[in-house]
């Protein structure tokens, strides 16, 4: 009886999660996949026809937005690494007994809704808003200068919105480093800079790796930042998909674009994991 229960336990533990994913991920994904291969229109209905044209047409029409999304995702991720690493480092090594307070402060803005935060950025950055208004009235920037509706605004918004997802994994990796190991490096004649480059940085790479995964993917497929901060000329593939689904109700094109994006991200992640996710990288970095 107890043997039976013991052998069933792993499955029982997995059951809720599996059920959840089956209902809310696998089934919709299959439905979407079939949608992307259908043809027809909203009025007359769609039928499954193995229609590859949605893919071909989608990519040829919207390749600009696809590339833009990848570029924005990449830049926002890089900015987050540059901003986030020192923060994670400081909390992990200098935070003392107040580490959890600092982490809470970091997450505090994120108790406010994602959309609301982005809209408040819009207020802040608007052409005569809190930032540019005073600067313009003081004559420090030209009257026609604007930040909103530029790619910088979108990348900045993306970098801001996903920052905690970059900092937290990096913090976890840095926090796990035994301070004695850093002392050992110093004991073995490494300067502070060498200790950082040879020991801290390589040991934090798994955290950076996880942080990049957790921010690059949602940033690339995001549409809120582009629509709130980016105006009309900086649309990302997320905006296109949203439009096709909700406004044009062109479900096959929207689904085909979604799968295209998913395929690109998967290929990118696998290439990235192969290049960075192995133990050899750590060893090379340590040399």
């Amino acid at each position, binding site marked *: 009886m107890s043997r039976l229960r013991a052998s069933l336990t792993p499955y029982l533990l997995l059951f809720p999660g599996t059920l959840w994913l089956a209902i809310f991920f696998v089934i919709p994904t299959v439905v979407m996949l079939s949608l992307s291969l259908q043809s027809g229109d909203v009025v007359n209905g769609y039928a499954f026809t193995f229609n590859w044209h949605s893919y071909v047409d989608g990519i040829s029409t919207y390749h600009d937005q696809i590339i833009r999304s990848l570029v924005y995702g990449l830049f926002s991720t890089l900015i987050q690494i540059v901003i986030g690493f020192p923060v994670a480092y400081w909390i992990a090594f200098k935070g003392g007994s107040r580490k959890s307070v600092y982490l809470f402060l970091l997450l505090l803005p994120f108790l406010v809704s994602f959309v609301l935060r982005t809209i408040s950025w819009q207020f802040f950055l608007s052409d005569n808003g809190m930032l540019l208004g005073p600067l313009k009235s003081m004559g420090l920037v030209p009257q026609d200068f604007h930040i909103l509706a530029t790619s910088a605004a979108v990348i900045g918004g993306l970098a801001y919105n996903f920052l905690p997802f970059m900092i937290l994994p990096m913090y976890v990796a840095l926090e796990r480093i035994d301070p*004695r190991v850093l002392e050992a490096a110093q*004991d*073995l*004649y490494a300067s502070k800079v060498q200790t950082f480059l040879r020991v801290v940085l390589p040991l934090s790479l798994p955290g950076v790796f996880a942080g990049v995964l957790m921010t690059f993917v949602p940033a690339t497929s995001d549409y809120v930042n582009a629509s709130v901060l980016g105006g009309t000329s900086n649309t990302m593939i997320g905006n296109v998909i949203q439009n096709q689904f909700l406004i044009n109700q062109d479900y096959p094109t929207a689904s085909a674009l979604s799968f295209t994006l998913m395929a690109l991200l998967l290929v990118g992640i696998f290439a990235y994991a192969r290049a960075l996710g192995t133990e050899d990288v*750590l060893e090379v970095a340590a040399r």
Partner: protein
Amino acid sequence: MTEIQAGPGAAVAAAPVSGDVPAIELDNVVKEYVSHGEVVQAVKGVSLAIAEGEFFSLLGPSGCGKTTSMRMIAGFEDPTQGVVRLHGEDVTNVPPNKRDINMVFQSYALFPHMNVWDNVAFGLKRKKVPDTEIKRRVGEILEVVDLVGREKRRPKEMSGGQQQRVALARALVNRPRALLLDEPLGALDLKLRQAMQIELKRIQREVGLTFVYVTHDQSEALTMSDRIAVMHDGLVEQLADPREIYERPASKFVAGFIGTSNLLSGTVQQVTGDTAVLALGASDRILIPADGALAAGATVDLTVRPEKIKIAKDQPEGDLSVVRGTVAEVVYLGTYNSYVVVLGDGAEITVFEQNAHDSTITAERGDTVWLSWQPWHSYALR
């Protein structure tokens, strides 16, 4: 310079190796920490000088300040007061990477992202030693610690003993002028521990290196060290060679901490010649060498080691310390028997009896026995 100063009141012993300048010197060093707004004195004023090539141990119970003292030598902690000198040079404000000594950490602190070879080569690379020499020296030292063929392993793929040897090799390969070891064998099982003790001692003798060895294991300190500083509560209680520490403990604390010892006390009844007589009961008396300090009426704390005491069923003859008691416990321990004897006044005395002939037991539980020992085996504590 061979004169060694120990903490307040501690014995002074000459260093076994005479050289001009001590390899390591702590001069009245104090270390205070502030924790939760309260000042904690981890080290309360330690002075010691460690000679070149010496195997020097810091021995003491947990929390007595051993690690803190060692970390100040290595440069990881700044002394609140006092001076640290290496080979006569004041290094109190020199960072650890500029000190020509290496440390073997209690937890090894190997670089988890590097294999054995890279771990060991780390220090030489930082010192910009040419590649061919790095290759040769790392190869040599891995042979010394018996890790040839494991160069590509990561620390987590190795046993505790192997990691310990990597940590040792990583420090030794730099040929530092002194090696600091903080309970390096603490995590090993008894067999491996003993093997490593012999190994460490061999390496130390072969390389002629100064070793500062932190341990709270008294038998380890006694077997390996040239000299031992027994620490207690941030101070050095006694600084001497192992024999001296064992035979002539400077304080009650040292006597109690090192080996098994019997602590007794009594009042001096009379002094005849160079022997003082302490009366304990009707037929019991303790003889103790009178070094001039003992006068009739003085109260004395003294210690006797269990192996110095003879146990017998009959009253012994001669100028001996003699006490009578009841056997409370007998333990057969293979090479010897251990007895606990309770005296008339309730004091307990432990006696070891060698099983030199047959494994016969002199007395059983409940027997009345006589204990005796030579006057010079009574050792007065200050």
